[in-house]
């Protein structure tokens, strides 16, 4: 039992470093993918056919690509494009590129739930497409899709572990470090799981809370 706790306390340096990087990946990835996802959703509902097509193409390609492949492409192919990218920024970028496609689709399904009358009324007041979208429709859409959005971000948080395969020292990589130090792997994996649960469970609870609180009756 004592050895079990020592696995954490003796290797606190690796654990704190790993989970700090995970947190950093999560925050930057969340901001990035929400921004890019919103832009993509705007493109997909815009009146310009070319933009709609481009948004649809992006979503269809990225959603059918393994995240690991996006990582591999950034790490091995991007330098050939003249973009020298370190492992950690590559991880932010890969998570953003990948998650944005899912965020876009979630947002778009939210936009579809807004009654047509809302947009018609806004247009009758002389609002432009951008104004209708950002002042009237998106705020209402966001409210209905906040629970699934949190679920997407939750999935992204877990996906940060993929970075372990590409030399980023985040929580998923702790295991490799500690096995070199000869620590008990079961204990190590248990502590990593425990660490993740402390991040994931609050997110799930927040999602449940908002689902009840923000349920929109239409």
């Amino acid at each position, binding site marked *: 039992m004592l050895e079990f706790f020592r696995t954490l306390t003796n290797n606190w340096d690796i654990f704190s470093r790993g989970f700090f990087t995970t947190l950093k990946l999560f925050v930057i990835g969340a901001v990035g993918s929400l921004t890019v996802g919103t832009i993509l959703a705007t493109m997909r509902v815009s009146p310009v056919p*070319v933009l709609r097509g481009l948004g649809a193409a992006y979503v269809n390609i990225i959603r059918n690509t*393994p995240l690991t*492949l996006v990582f591999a492409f950034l790490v091995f192919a991007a330098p*050939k*494009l003249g973009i020298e990218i370190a492992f950690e920024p590559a991880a932010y970028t890969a998570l953003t590129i990948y998650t944005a496609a899912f965020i876009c689709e979630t947002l778009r399904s939210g936009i579809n739930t807004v009654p047509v009358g809302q*947009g018609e009324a806004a247009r009758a007041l002389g609002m432009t497409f951008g104004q209708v979208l950002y002042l009237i429709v998106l705020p209402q859409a966001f409210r209905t899709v906040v629970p*699934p959005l949190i679920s997407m971000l939750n999935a992204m948080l877990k*996906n940060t572990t993929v970075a372990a395969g590409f030399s980023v020292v985040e929580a998923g990589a702790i295991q490799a470090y500690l096995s070199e130090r000869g620590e008990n*792997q079961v204990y190590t994996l248990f502590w990593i799981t425990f660490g*993740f649960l402390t991040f994931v469970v609050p997110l799930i609870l927040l999602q449940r809370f908002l689902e009840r609180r923000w349920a929109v009756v239409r």
Partner: protein
Amino acid sequence: MSTSVLYDEPGPRARLRHRFVGIATIGLIVAFVAFTIYRFSETGQFEPLKWKQFEYEAIQLQLLHGLLATLEAAGTAAALALIFGGVFASARISDAWIFRAPATFLVELFRAIPLLILIFFGYYVPLQYGLHISNFWALVAGLTVYNGSVLAEIIRAGIAAIPSGQSEAAYALGMQKGQVVRLILLPQAIRSMLPSIIGQLVVLLKDTALGFIITYPELLYVGKQMGSRLAFDLPYVPTYLVIAAIYIGMCAIMSAFANWLAKRGDGKRSPAPAPRP
């Protein structure tokens, strides 16, 4: 005429503006593609030597083996995950708390742990106790419990979305719970669930790519090996382009099938939850 919430049918000036934006966007796309091709040819990615390896039978076979390894892991895990999902979904809707409580706990737990960590559990924990589990089964075990839990949730939500009048009518006819679920709820639920289930299987197929971290020789692992061949001047870009085409092709076909099923459905019932990436 227009059914969009956001804009009316465009008039002549709007159409002109849209055409302008469209042309500008196409210009940007063309510029981006041209830049990519220029950089790739500048750094020699299109040199014949880098692509030559795909002409060799041994290399083609290696690629094929990688693809088969991917499909083998994905197929096994998909079958097991469907069974896992079915069993846990029925436990979750059981009236007996002794089945319901542990099933709910496990489903929530497995969904909260990163897939990679689950795979590590399958791989390293037996090792610690002197048991060797092959990387194939470690990968399949991780994929099964993670995607099986998500599938359990999809199936449960699909059944819960059936109007309560359906089961009430069945109970009124004297049916037992098992009969109600089997004969009344499931046949209806499967219609609305199928697109989500296939969507989740696409996620499962994509996630086999994590296998390379525990050196399971799937497609991406093979790709990494092929890309690092000095004899062909490190053909990373060509290899990843080929592998991306294979992955995207396979997944796109499955996704298109799921979309087709979703469109074919009546579309009135609220669909089951979206697959989790």
